């Protein structure tokens, strides 16, 4: 697991931690079943407050990325569960919305945007 905090970031510290761990779980760099460092250990390693790391973990938990198991710590959940799918879908929507907005700024036609998507070969 890798977490790099930036003071210049727009995001508050807890959100930076949440997003970075999420990204690594999503792309598989942190495998399912991995036990994350404890809240106190992470706070110490990053030189930040315990409340901050607690919040990051709590949000990862409520979004279904990790589960805290008594006596074991915080464990990374299976990647293909429903919650994660919803996460991806929401992310996809957001990026598509952004793409449409930029296309409008460029006064692109609908066909042009679809063509641009097709070039990416997944369609």
């Amino acid at each position, binding site marked *: 697991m890798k977490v790099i905090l930036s003071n210049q970031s727009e995001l*508050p510290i807890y959100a930076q931690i949440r997003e970075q761990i999420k990204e690594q779980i999503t792309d598989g760099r942190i495998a399912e079943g991995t036990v994350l460092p404890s809240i*106190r*250990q992470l706070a*110490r390693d990053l*030189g930040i407050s*315990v*409340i901050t790391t607690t919040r990051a973990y709590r949000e990862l938990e409520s979004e279904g990325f990790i589960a805290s198991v008594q006596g074991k710590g915080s464990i990374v959940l299976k990647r293909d569960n429903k919650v994660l799918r919803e996460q991806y879908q929401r992310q996809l929507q957001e990026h598509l919305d952004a793409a449409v907005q930029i296309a409008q700024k460029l006064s692109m036609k609908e066909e042009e945007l679809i063509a641009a998507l097709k070039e990416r070969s997944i369609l």
Partner: protein
Amino acid sequence: MNALEVKGLTKKYRDFTLSDISFSLPKGYIMGYVGQNGAGKTTTLCMIAHLLKGDAGVCSIDGLTYEKQPVQYREAIGYIGDKDGLVPDFTIGDVCSICRDFYPSFRADTFRAYVKKWKLPEKKKIKTFSRGMKVKLMFAEVLSRETKLLILDEATNGLDPVVRREILELLQDYISDGERSILFSTHILSDLEQIADYIFFIHNGKKVFFETKEELQEAYMLVKGGSGELRAPEKDCLIGVRESDVGFEALVRTDDAPCLPQGVLLEKPTVDQIVVHMIKDMEG
């Protein structure tokens, strides 16, 4: 159970009153006690450590009170102040044997290990030590016995950034088992701010706020803009405005931020910035 509970601490001096200070600090957390010089930080901390007798108020540490268990209460505290209180003609060996006699839980081997790790000169008298060495010696002393609460009164003043960083890690190790807590006072927040869970802000002997740092930094934003952009209705929600020819800087409640005119710059504030603007606002 809370590591520290403070209720209604009051102390009257001729020209200063510490009034009705109350808070509680849960186990395993760090609290920063913040305020200007003369705000009442040392008075509060000395009363908690029972180095100073107050006019009213009660403190308990892990359920212990000074009134009922004075010895255990004192032993539960590790206090490090701004002034070192070390005997100038002592050597490290003298400090070690005094501590061994004084505190039943003092472990000479732990103490020696710190002395070695920090390369403190064992033969020299303490009066020849630098400020950094003295602070390290005090930490070695306190960390070599069983305590529940560290009270640090401006303890990292006058230390270079490298030593401050080391102390920071030491403090985080101290709370890492979730059983022990730290109360520190400071007027230089920058580095200690990072590790603090709670912030208590005192001004003229009175509480201004006591919140988690997270909540605090979400409740306020720093706003900057050109001087012409300040208009009457919006001006009311600004806290502690600092104006110059080229622009202004102020604090604003995050809830009020949407009322501000377009084009102003909004940033997340540091605790220092929150405190500075609040003091400016209170003093007009």
